[in-house]
């Protein structure tokens, strides 16, 4: 009963965050227009590449599959909430003190809010991207099993990204500004996660290394799972995501413990 009550609190925070996200129409339009531009530019790019190679497959994907892959990775990347800057602001303004006296886990509260934000943003991005992809390149073969496997990779992908950004935010206890670090983190995810280029296009010597890094689990794995699902890829993704989540959780717990030791409360 206590566990259910506790879970209800976090679910309610997530639900509130999801609803408030829908109130900012301007931001939704901004993300959708940016997604449209990127998809158009990359469709032009891949049209040129496929025509130049004379092949109907590049990196194992056809042109429509490449565009749909990009829809999924962009939808995930652009749905990321501003966790690092929120944690940074909490530390810098002292708002952290207000959070800590609440009967809620600090990281749990942020996780609920972030997931509420992310689910709504991802749904909107994916819907808009899917409509654009249908117009630009048409549909690709999709099976019910493939859709289930695709959605199975998403929760851990979102959780991994959240933990990474939360860690960056906690660095505010030691650094004057975490904005640079947050920018580096997002670029690392973009480059090593295969946002624009599927990992199969990277140099062969890099591919095995990139596949075991957590970044590929955030973007490339869901992307490939959508356009070219396979049970083998699902098994690999679950193992890598599971290991990455465990390591990230441990690191977040240690860093948060060390960070809280630097926290001092002054009266007034």
């Amino acid at each position: 009963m206590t566990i259910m009550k506790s879970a209800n609190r976090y679910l309610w925070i997530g639900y509130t965050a999801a609803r408030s996200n829908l109130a900012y129409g301007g931001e939704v339009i901004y993300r959708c227009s940016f997604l449209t531009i990127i998809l158009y530019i990359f469709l032009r790019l891949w049209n040129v590449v496929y025509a130049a190679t004379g092949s109907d497959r590049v990196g194992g994907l056809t042109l429509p599959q490449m565009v749909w892959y990009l829809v999924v990775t962009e939808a995930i990347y652009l749905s990321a909430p501003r966790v690092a800057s929120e944690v940074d602001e909490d530390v810098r303004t002292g708002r952290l003190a207000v959070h800590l006296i609440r009967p809620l886990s600090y990281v749990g509260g942020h996780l609920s809010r972030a997931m509420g934000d992310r689910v709504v943003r991802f749904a909107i991005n994916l819907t808009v991207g899917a409509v654009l992809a249908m117009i630009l390149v048409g549909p690709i073969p999709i099976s019910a099993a493939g859709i289930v496997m695709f959605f199975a990779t998403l929760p851990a992908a979102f959780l991994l990204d959240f933990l990474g950004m939360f860690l960056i935010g906690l660095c505010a206890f030691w650094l004057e500004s975490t904005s640079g670090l947050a920018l580096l983190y997002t670029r690392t995810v973009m480059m090593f996660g295969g946002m624009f280029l599927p990992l199969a296009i990277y140099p062969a010597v890099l591919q095995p290394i990139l596949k075991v890094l957590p970044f590929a689990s955030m973007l490339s794995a869901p992307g490939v799972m959508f356009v070219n699902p396979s049970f083998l890829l699902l098994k690999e993704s679950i193992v890598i995501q599971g290991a990455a989540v465990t390591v990230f959780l441990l690191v977040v717990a240690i860093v948060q413990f060390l960070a809280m030791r630097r926290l001092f409360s002054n009266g007034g």
Partner: protein
Amino acid sequence: MFRSFVDYLRLCAAYLRINMNAQLEYRGAFYSQVAAMFINDGAWVAFWLLFFNRFPVLHGWSLKDVMCLWAVTTAGFGIAYGVMGNAHRRLASAIAQGELDLWMLHPRAVLPHFLLGSTIPSAWGDAAFGFVIYFGFVKPSFQQALMFVVLSIVVAVVFVGFGVMTGSLSFYLGNASTLSDQWRDISITFATYPPTLFDGKVKLLLFTVIPAGFISYLPVESLRSVSIADLLIAIAGALGVLAAGVGMFYFGLRRYESGNLISMRE
């Protein structure tokens, strides 16, 4: 007129000194933002390195051409918003919230004071990146090197003019911050991809509504051809964008009404 121009250059130098002193009070934050933006730009270049490693030519454009495009765009962006930080994402909200009142109390024209009022720390990372990539990777001839320095200032003029143009929308549409940011970000996005990807109608758009052509395509063509004629066209285009932006601002300023909001210099 020449004396007036020199006076405004001295104003620019004074503001730059003040802004940099303010930023360097928090050196760690300043240098980390510069370094992070440098690495961020490097990530985009790494993407193109991977791309051209697999697909060596893109409609006549090679890796060197794309490096050149990124160098001139980032150098121009960095100079523009390093010197005139308020031209980036501030003008639209300042107009909507009545913050121009403070700047209108300064002597002489209000726009230079407002634009010079702050610096964007990360823009210096972009500027450094542009020059490092061009001189380190492209390895230009002496004429190309001179032309690059001139073109980076030309592109900076385009960025400032376009920033003023998009920000001035708030005079006519109310709080146009989001629209202004979107318009500017879309232009920058198009400017960082080779123009050979786009066909005739889109290219027309890229020299009018979305001035990506003036930001990167014309400057890169000037550097490829080392042609003074192309350079003069790029300069004319930049001055045209600046004139349009300044015109929109001062025409909109006639419609501006002061509010009762108390504001402070940040």
